């Protein structure tokens, strides 16, 4: 008794429901295409999430701090610093204020002006770093009080830094979403082409099915089921490989940079898990549409 006989005896002739003959190359092409597209979609999602995290971290950092810059003449400098500290001390929303010494200023300027900075030769303003609490102070009221007590002091709540950063973050997100949409569309096109090729290749099967009274939806379903299963397998493989790659990238990057923030956590997993399902749905729909058009064209 051969394998076919055993399969028929114990599982029935249609145990594997292979009305459409399995063709190796087409099957692997569909699985590979879906796996690759899912990999790229997950990578784009990871990049978008990491970008958002990076921007949020920066934005939060900027939002929780403010700076008072005092470009005062040397004779009134100390007096204005003391006045500013006094004002800040009595302002709600201010957690603490600290005057930056020369060494701290040198550290901040080092990335742009180098380490051998002759601070004595530069007319640097006095800088007060302010930590905020809650919603922070009323900026307009504070600016007015500072103008009265320390006319050379300038209150900077970092708004002008945060706005472009938020704009950049939004654009980066849009870019990632566009990439995912394009990848999905490309997947749909590729699956449609593969399904059309399979339908043309299996013209004999369709004729036979029609001959024995198969309805259109039965014929469509035989092809849709095949392609949907392949797409599901491919997308799960692609997603698994992408998760491993993303995790390896994050693990290999120890410093506090963009790449160290790449990865998935919390609700990210829901978004991630949606990608294989979206890929499978796209394959399902693309095959269904291709099969419907094929049958109508034949009629």
């Amino acid at each position: 008794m051969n394998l076919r006989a055993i399969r028929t005896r114990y599982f029935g002739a249609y145990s594997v429901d292979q009305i459409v003959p399995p063709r190796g190359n087409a099957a692997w092409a569909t699985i590979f295409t879906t796996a690759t597209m899912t990999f790229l979609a997950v990578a784009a999602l990871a990049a978008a999430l990491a970008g958002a995290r990076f921007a949020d971290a920066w934005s939060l950092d900027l939002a929780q701090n403010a700076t008072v810059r005092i470009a005062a003449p040397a004779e009134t400098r100390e007096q204005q610093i003391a006045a500013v500290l006094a004002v800040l001390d009595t302002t709600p929303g201010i957690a603490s204020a600290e005057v930056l010494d020369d060494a701290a200023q040198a550290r901040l300027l080092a990335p742009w002006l180098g380490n051998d900075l002759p601070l004595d030769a530069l007319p640097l303003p006095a800088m007060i770093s302010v930590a905020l609490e809650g919603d922070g102070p009323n900026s307009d009221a504070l600016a007015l009080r500072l103008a009265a007590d320390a006319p050379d002091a300038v209150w900077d709540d970092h708004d002008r830094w945060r706005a472009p950063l938020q704009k950049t973050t939004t654009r980066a997100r849009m870019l990632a979403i566009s990439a995912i949409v394009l990848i999905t569309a490309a997947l749909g096109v590729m699956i449609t082409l593969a399904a059309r090729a399979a339908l043309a290749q299996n013209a004999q099967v369709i004729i036979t099915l029609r001959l024995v009274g198969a309805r259109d939806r039965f014929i469509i379903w035989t092809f849709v089921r095949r392609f949907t299963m392949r797409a599901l397998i491919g997308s799960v493989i692609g997603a698994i490989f992408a998760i491993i790659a993303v995790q390896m990238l994050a693990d290999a990057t120890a410093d506090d940079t963009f790449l160290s923030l790449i990865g998935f956590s919390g609700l990210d997993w829901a978004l991630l898990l949606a990608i294989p399902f979206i890929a499978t749905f796209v394959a399902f729909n693309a095959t269904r549409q291709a099969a419907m058009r094929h049958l109508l064209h034949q009629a």
Partner: protein
Amino acid sequence: MITFEQAGFSYGRNSILNGITQELAPGSFHFLTGPSGAGKTTLLKLCYLALRPTAGTVKLFGQDVSKLSRDRVAEMRRRIGVVHQDCQFLDHQTVRANIELPMKVGGRNIQKNRSNVDDLLSWVGLTKRGDALPPELSGGERQRLAVARAVIMAPEIIIADEPTGNVDWEMGHRLLTLLVELNKMGKTIIIASHDMNLIRAAKSMATTRVMRLVKGQLVAAGADL
């Protein structure tokens, strides 16, 4: 059962059949004969709804086929068994699976009907070939497989297009015997054939009618042609 009223068919300007008027009664046995290109296969395709008439009317089971939806056409086809000269099978599926295909398509429980399939395999002499693939069969075995698949759903009409075209006389006679047996069970049989020996042999076994087509027109129909 099948009624043609001035039925015709043409591909564009090329007329294949025209002015066919004929009624095929339930349980009758018909031979469709005529030279190559006379329109025999086209007339059969009108009978099993592979084509719809471009002129006149064809009624099947009392219904005008031109007005049937695609789903209804599929359902009607289940009431008709078709045996082709170039038998069309799922070549990657076993003989048994090919016989079971109409049941699968019709939503019948295959496991419950396994004994029917076994009986059919035995009836057409393919019991030992149930696990073979169609390409592994001889011409005669393929024709018998086609007959088995055509009758698995107990159709009311069996249509055969040159069923003995690819087999020797002995096998042709065996196939004819199967079709005559089906006719005696009350099935309507329509066979397109230009094999006069086959027609003569059928006449000796059953009451048959012969329809002769020439250049797309039915030139004669009767029992004594």
